[in-house]
């Protein structure tokens, strides 16, 4: 990948909150791979659930974590006794379905029966589709997730393989408002201001208070630039592209 501006320390600081979430996800990934190895790629549903619960629940209970939901979603047919299996937990700060209750870490109840009306083929969704196609970590969103967090959310997912075959994706949800709080100080430290956008040029967070999170950064040629991960073709904006996360940081160039 080519990048126009060299990443410098201020830019690295913006990446840090995501990097720390990615680090947790990769740590779970490693433990899951170990289980896959010790079971010959054939774990039971109970083994997967017990492992994922033991991995994600402590992280979901951390006080200052960005992670509000986390787990492992199986590739269809990977677990023969549960062809569509979601092993996903919601943190105690996750308000989904918790009106007047909340405050407890709990498992997401999802329909795994393809015959049921509430069943959803998650392999069509961005958080599945994109990382599985690219083989890389991917951040979906921000998007209104009214199925799981009930909030404006970003989802980081990483594909998981065993013996060269896809077995599922592992990942974590973050609230957009928490991401804003975590990123703004680092963005403000960048001279001239900066806007973090996703691959469709949707604003994640910006130093410009009038660039709303969720709005599109409309600029001639920007979409093509983001798509091709190519060099700058955009007037006054220098995109710094981050390998793997599919997010880009747009730096407003300071003209003397």
């Amino acid at each position: 990948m080519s990048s126009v501006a060299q990443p410098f320390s201020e830019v690295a600081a913006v990446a840090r909150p995501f990097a720390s979430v990615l680090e947790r996800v990769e740590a779970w990934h490693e433990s899951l791979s170990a289980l896959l190895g010790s079971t010959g790629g054939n774990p039971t549903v109970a083994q997967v659930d017990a492992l994922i619960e033991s991995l994600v629940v402590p992280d979901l209970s951390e006080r200052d974590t960005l992670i509000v939901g986390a787990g492992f979603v199986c590739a269809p047919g990977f677990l023969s006794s549960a062809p569509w299996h979601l092993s996903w937990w919601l943190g105690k700060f996750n308000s989904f379905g918790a009106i007047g209750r909340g405050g407890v870490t709990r498992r997401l109840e999802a329909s795994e029966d393809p015959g049921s009306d509430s069943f959803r083929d998650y392999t069509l969704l961005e958080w599945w589709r994109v990382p599985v196609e690219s083989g890389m970590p991917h951040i979906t969103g921000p998007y209104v997730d009214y199925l799981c967090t009930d909030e404006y959310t970003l989802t980081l997912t990483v594909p998981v393989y065993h013996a060269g075959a896809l077995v599922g994706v592992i990942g974590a949800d973050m609230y957009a408002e928490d991401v804003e709080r975590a990123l703004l100080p680092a963005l403000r430290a960048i001279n001239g201001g900066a806007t973090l956008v996703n691959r469709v040029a949707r604003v994640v967070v910006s130093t410009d208070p009038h660039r709303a999170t969720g709005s599109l950064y409309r600029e001639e040629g920007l979409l093509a630039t983001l798509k091709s991960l190519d060099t700058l073709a955009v007037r006054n904006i220098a995109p710094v592209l981050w390998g793997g996360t599919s997010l880009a940081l747009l730096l407003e160039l300071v003209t003397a």
Partner: protein
Amino acid sequence: MPQSTRARSAARAAVFAPLDGAGRAEVVERRLSDAILLGLLAPGERLPSEADLSRQFNVATVTAREALESLRGRGLVQTRRGRGGGSFVRSKSDAHLEVIEERVRGISRVELRDLGVHFAALAAMSAELAAERASGDDVEGLERLVASFARDTDGAARRAENTFRLEVAALSQSARLVRELLRLQAEFGPVLWLNLRDQRYRDRSAERQAAVVTAIAAADPAAARRATLEHIDEAVECLVDAKAELEARSP
């Protein structure tokens, strides 16, 4: 995490969101009956057990039982005993229509119009924002969704309407709009789309959705708003007509 290409399970999640306040059995009953009428709970589908319902709604078991009994009394669910037993959604669409008609009679014309205004405000703002904020991928997803809708029965067409509204609201990028719309749809959805009994309006609904999608694709907020308002106005006018007719039939 799971994203909203299909709004159905989202709406279902809202169905089982915990309750607080008085008259809980009635509220549980209303939520479940609305979900059945909306088609969120499908004919033949098993409802959660009394224990699960009481846990999910955060009410006493006896309250959940009371709500189920009353749904049985109205012919919306039936209970089977033994292994594989439980409460199942009945498939008698006549019973469903009767319940909807009963609700339409029970709501004053003033209240119906006010619900229409509230719903139109949320839906129009959603469409307007969606036109500003939808990416090319979003538009493609919406087109695929609209093309996938079955519209051969009133239940299917109602589901299509609800799913479409929620998906457009999600494209607005506003979690509050989505939550409000989900709540209002659960309360008002079955009644508002009474006109979808008629195939003519089911075709019309497809046309109107296509017009909204076109406006969103063209990034034309004013057109998206206009198409949405026209569609909802029309449904409300049909609804007050239907109410007048019902009342004339048996005052």
